[in-house]
Structures are given as C-alpha cells and as structure tokens.
C-alpha cells in the first residue's frame, strides 16, 4: 500500500524531541500549521479534543492522532519519529515513538475514514514499525511509506 498520496516528504519529522503526549501533538500541530499556512492553535485544539475520546495510540509504539478541520481542503498527513518513546495512554500501555497524524476536511466523510484505515493497517503490517525505526532521514522514511506494501512485505 502506498501512502504517498497522503503525505509529502517535507511533512516527515525523522527525529522529534518531546517529553509528553501533549508536547508531541503541539510540535506536530505547529509544523502542520506552517506547512498548511493556518493557525496551529486550531489544529492542536482539534487533535486534543479527539484524544479526549480515547487515545489514538493503536499499540506497539504507534499512534495515529487525527482530526477534522473546517479550513483545509484536502487530506493532510504528517509523520514523526520520536527521539525517545513517550507515554501515550495507548491501548497496550506501551510508550509510543511512531506517530502518523492525519488532518481531514469536515466534508471528507468516507475518504477520511478510508485513509485512517489504510494508515492503521499499514502500521500494523509485520516489520513496518521496525523499518520506520531503522530509517535515518526523512527521505528514507518517505521511501518506506510510499513503497510500503510490496509483495515481499508479507
């Protein structure tokens, strides 16, 4: 599966320094705000609101924070690998070091859910997280994310 339609290479942070879940979301919201040219506060608030319904940590060190925003007009993905794993209240209580963030327009509906499902599935793929952890820079991570489901992945 190929996520290259969801994410650009400049939206990949190969090594993010953060000490808490909130800080991760804040840092990523800020970066997203810059890339999208919109107030990061808004993004941050929406993401945090979603986290209140239940953590988006899906287990095995992966989290997929997501939110719907009124002001963007297409799906926007961002990726970050954390310097050190942090507590994310994930399903399995394991600390998280791989974060894929997804922002969607209010009107995205089914597309939003489909994209989320794709990301979740990809992150659960055997060996995927290891590959992402082993990649050194943004270009390498981008290559992993966009070539992800070659047949030999299974």
């Amino acid at each position, binding site marked *: 599966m190929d996520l290259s339609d969801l994410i650009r290479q400049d939206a990949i942070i190969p090594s993010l320094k953060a000490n808490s879940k909130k800080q991760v979301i804040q840092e990523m919201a800020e970066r997203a705000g810059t890339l999208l040219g919109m107030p990061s506060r808004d993004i941050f608030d929406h993401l945090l609101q979603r986290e*209140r*319904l*239940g*953590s*988006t940590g899906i287990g095995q060190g992966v989290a*997929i924070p997501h939110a719907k925003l009124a002001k963007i007009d297409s799906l926007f993905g961002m990726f970050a690998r954390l310097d050190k794993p942090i507590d994310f209240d994930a399903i399995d209580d394991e600390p998280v070091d791989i974060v894929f963030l997804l922002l969607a327009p209010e009107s995205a509906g089914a597309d939003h859910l489909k994209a989320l*499902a794709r990301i979740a599935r990809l992150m659960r*793929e055997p060996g995927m997280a290891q590959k992402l952890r082993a990649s050194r820079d943004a270009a390498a991570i981008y290559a992993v994310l966009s070539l992800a489901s070659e047949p030999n992945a299974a």
Partner: protein
Amino acid sequence: MLDLPLLFILVSSTLLVLAVLTSLIAFRIGAPLLLLFLGIGLLVGEDGVGLTFDNAPVAYFLGSVALAVILFDSGFNTRFETASRAAWPSLTLATVGVLLTTALVGVVVHYLAGLSWRASLLLGAIVSSTDAAAVFFLLRVGGISIRERVRATLEVESGSNDPMAVFLTATFVDMIIAGPEVGAPVLAFLQAFALQIGLGAAAGVAGGWLIATTINRLRLEPGLYPVIVLGLALLMFALISLMGGSGFLTVYIAGMMTGNLGRQGMPLLRKFQDGLTWLAQIGMFLILGLLATPSEFGKIWVQGIVVALFLMFIARPLAVWLCLLPYRFTREETAFISWVGLRGAVSIMLAILPMMAAIPAGQAFFNVAFIVVLTSMVLQGWTIRPVARKLGLVVPPEIGPVEKVELELPGQATHELVAYHIVKDSPVVTGERIPRWARPSLVVRDGHSMKPHEAGAPRVDDFVYIFTPPRYIRLLDRLFASAVALDDSDQIYFGDFALDGEARIADVAHEYGIALRGDPGDTTLAEFLTEKLGGEPHRGDRMTFGLVELIVRDIGDEDDIKTVGLSLTPAHTERRRLPMFHNLDEIVSGTRERFARRRMWRIAAKEQKPTMPDQTDGPADSSPTQTTAASPVSAPPVSAPPAPGISAAKPPAKPKAAARKAAPSGSAKRKPPSSAGKSAKPPGVKGK
C-alpha cells in the same frame, strides 16, 4: 462363580482406563471426545472384539443415572446470572423448539419412510433434544470462549430440553402401545405435561434449597459433603420420577440451586462433581456404544443419514430461527446455535424406550437414532471450533492462563485463601503496582516461606498466598495472569482505535460520521451502545453504525462498558453476513424499507404522470403496475443508501430485483484487503 463379578470389574475398568488414555489423543487431533468413547464401545462390542451386551433395560437404567448426574452437574456449574440472562431464549428453545423439531422430523419420516404418524413423531421426539453432555463438553472443554449470551443460551437449552424430549418420547411410546383405536387424548396429554414440568421444576427448587441448606448447616466430615449431595440428588431424581414428575428437570434445577446457594465445601464438591461427571459421560457412551451393533444396521444406514442431515440442515435451523425470532440475536449467533444442536447420549437412551416397550420397529428406531447421533457428532462435533471462528463468535481471551489454587478455609469465612504461581510476563512482574487488597500474606520463594516485606517485589516462580474476599478473585486473576498473545485477527476483532466509554456519543458521531436520530445530548458512548445492544453488553459485542463499527472492548465490574473499539473497516463483518436467520427486528425494518421504497416509486411514477398526455391524476393511484413502468432510472430518491442511519438494519431480506442495484448490498461483497493479506498466518492462538 466368584469369577464373574471380578471379570466384570476387569472388563469395565479396562474400558475406563482405555477411554481416559485415548482422550489424550483426542485432544491432540481435536476429535470430539464423546465420539471417541462411543467408538471404543463399538470397537469392543459385538462388531469388534466381540463383547456381547444387549441388555437394553440395564443400559437404560445406567444411562438414566448417568444423565441425572450429568444434569445435576450442568446445573451446578450454571450461575444464576447466566441462567437468567438466557432464560427466555433457552426456555423457548427447550419447549417450542423441541416440539417443532419433533414435528418437522416426524413429517419427513412419515412421508419418506411411510411410517404411521405416531411412529414418525416418536422418532422425531427421540432425536429432538440437544445433548447436555455433548454441548457442555464441547463448549467448556473445547477451550473456546464464545460470546456470553450465545454460550449461556446453548448451555441452559441443552440442560433444560432433555425433560421435554423424555416426556414426548414416553408419551408417543404410550400412545403406540395403546393402539390406534385409542384416540390421542389431548387433555390427558396436557395434564401429564403439566405434572411432569410443574412437579419437576417445583421439586427442583425445593430440593435444591434443601441440599444447599443441608450442606451449609450440617457439620460433617469434609469428605462426606459430596456424598450426601449425590445421595440427595439421586433420591430426588428417583422420587420425583416415581411421582410422575420429570426427575431430570428436578436434578438440573436442584443442581443450579446447590451450585449457587451452597457455601460449605464448595471447592471439594466441584472437584468431586467434575470427576463424577467424567465417569458418567464415559460410562454412558461406552455402554451405548456396546449396545449398538452397526453390522446389523443394513439398509437403515441410508435412512438414518437422511434423517440426520435433514435434522442438522433443515429442522434444527428452522426451529431455532423461529424460536429466536423475538430475541434480537444476530444472524451469525442464530446460525451457530442451530449448528451446535448436537445429538448425543440422550437420544440413544431415549431410543431404548421403544425397544423396551417391545414396539415392533423398536430396534430400527434405535439404529436410526444411533446413526443420527453418530453423524451429528462427527459433522457438528468436529466443526464447532472452525464454525465459531468463521462466524466471528470467538471472543479473544481477556487474560492469559493463570496458575492458582483456591484453598478452602474452615468456618464460613467471608475470605478465601488463594495461591498464585507467579508466571513470566504477568502484570505483577512487569511492574504493575500491587493494590492494597492484593498484598500477599505469605510468599514462598525457592522453598522458603517469607513475609511479604521480606520478599519485596514478586519474582517469577514465587508462590504468593493472598487472603481475599471472593469478589476480588477476578481482579487478582488479571494481575497474576500471563500476558495474552493477541494475534492480528484479534486486533482486527477489536477495531483500530479504542474509545473511552465516557466519551459523549455526539462527539464520536461527529468525528466518524455516525448519523444520529434526534439530539443525543450528553449521552455517553457507553450508554448509547448499551441501549443499542438491548441493555446487556458483553465483551466482543459489535454493531455497525454508518461507515464504522463499534465493539465492546472492556466491561467494568458493574457490567458497564469501559472502552469501545472502533473499527474503520466494518467490511470485516459484512463479509460474514449470512443471507438467512434474520431476527424479528431485521425483518420488520427490512419490510418497512421495502414498503418505503415501493411508496417512493409510486410517488416517482405519479410525478411523471402530469407530463404524459391525457392521463388524469385520479386513476393513477390505483394502478400499481405503473410502478414497474417507472423503471429505476426515474427514481433517484430510492437509491439513497439507507446505510448511515443508526439502525443496525441490513439490506432488506428480499430486495426486488430492480431495487437491488440501488441497495448497498453490492458493495458489501467487497473483500477487505486487510484480512486477505493477514490470512497467510495461521489463525491459531499463540502460546499454549
């Protein structure tokens, strides 16, 4: 002469040992154990080694005692909560279901084999009940955890339908003996029925209370408790049967009362019952295997198998579906319940009755019943696990295996002493804080006993002794259990994300595009889902809302939903949607949708009318044929998919051919790519 009893002991004990030892193999190859016992009986019998045993009355006597013991134990292990949860569906199955099955099989036998009505119905009654022994056994020993409600229904059904089948069989035997000139005395029949069930149930409640009180009050040598319980149970069985009540029903209910109300000596009693039930099962199946002589079956094989297949694929499913219509079971659950309609020893035992009564075709009945049971055990018994998996009814385990011993304390202590063996990866070892009520009183490490403060943090291979109120044991189990290895399919089972049960449904709905009817206000996700699930949520219950599916992940101590899984690919379940076994809700909403659709068409057709020349509005109303002329093209409002609605309704039962294009059922066929990729892995449970 002295040698004869010894010889008897020699043979029976050899068989017993053989049966137990072969069970080891059975576990390996996953064969239904009971089938194995039956097989040993057959092997040793006339057709095999040549041991001749054809004393039907003795077989019936032993079988009855064994069944009484088994039913008592079934009741003993059924919690009141389980029973009440499944009471209505299982009682419907046990009464109406048995009658329906009897009637359906009877009709087929009457027309296919040309037997008289009474004889046909007799055969129907013989094979009408599911076997408590077989069902319990497969559900418990099979080691799969099925959704709570389904399991409870099956268990209570199989425990409570034997009395009905016994009663029906006896009645038909009596009617045949009385001869055709005596008309069917409906009134007497109903009276006898009322006596059987009424007396049986009442005596069961009273007797169960008596047993519980006896063991709670009486101070006895500990080893005597099981003996007195067994004695009282069999006493009641015999007494009530003699009085014309259903002794089987009595022991079942008495067992339930004892198991729930008893306090003294319960762990010992449970162990004793366990062993005794095994003995009863093995004995019963061995004897019935010995009694049968398959080489004499001859042509009846074919007929027997036809009856068996009809029973499994038509009669039972139809009866189950009709009985469960009002109870909001999902289609998969209904399908599973009909598949687990195992026939077992009870049917074979009942088939002895006509033989004993010297009814002309008695032997043939016995043979047919035997073939039916054999077929059912092979086909259904062997496939329960894969079928449950296929239908998505297997709930992934909540906690891993626990190694513990519960010790009984003298006196009516409100606390119990539990010993846990600390295993690798259990939460206590991996750093989970031990709550105050879970502090051990004693720690045994490397053979030395020490005080907890000396021992410090628990280590692997320690034994800890905890003094605790019984209600905490479930929580303790979680702390001391080894880690659960959830495999990929389990993760998919519980969805991609976990949501807090306390979250407002309005927020969740907004985030994931769930259409709500009306304003939910501050309703929480837990409340919303509980209501949608008919008030009784269980771990693993799931329901589709629009494009997502919500799954109950965790249940709190007060049966409230703690966390809810959110699956973004409900296609996972849609793939499994069966084309039959709709429940009443689904039928109603399906029909309603169909009517709505038809009305839409009529409106659409009517709107077209004015554009047509010389046609008045008047008669258009009464010309339904016009609707077909309107063709789907002119009916855009129809094609609006009903999916995002809240209702769990699926596409209507029988969509009109033209409407099918518009209905979303076509897209449901899509196979989710996820599970296609994952299935390369064996789906088996990891670990031991």
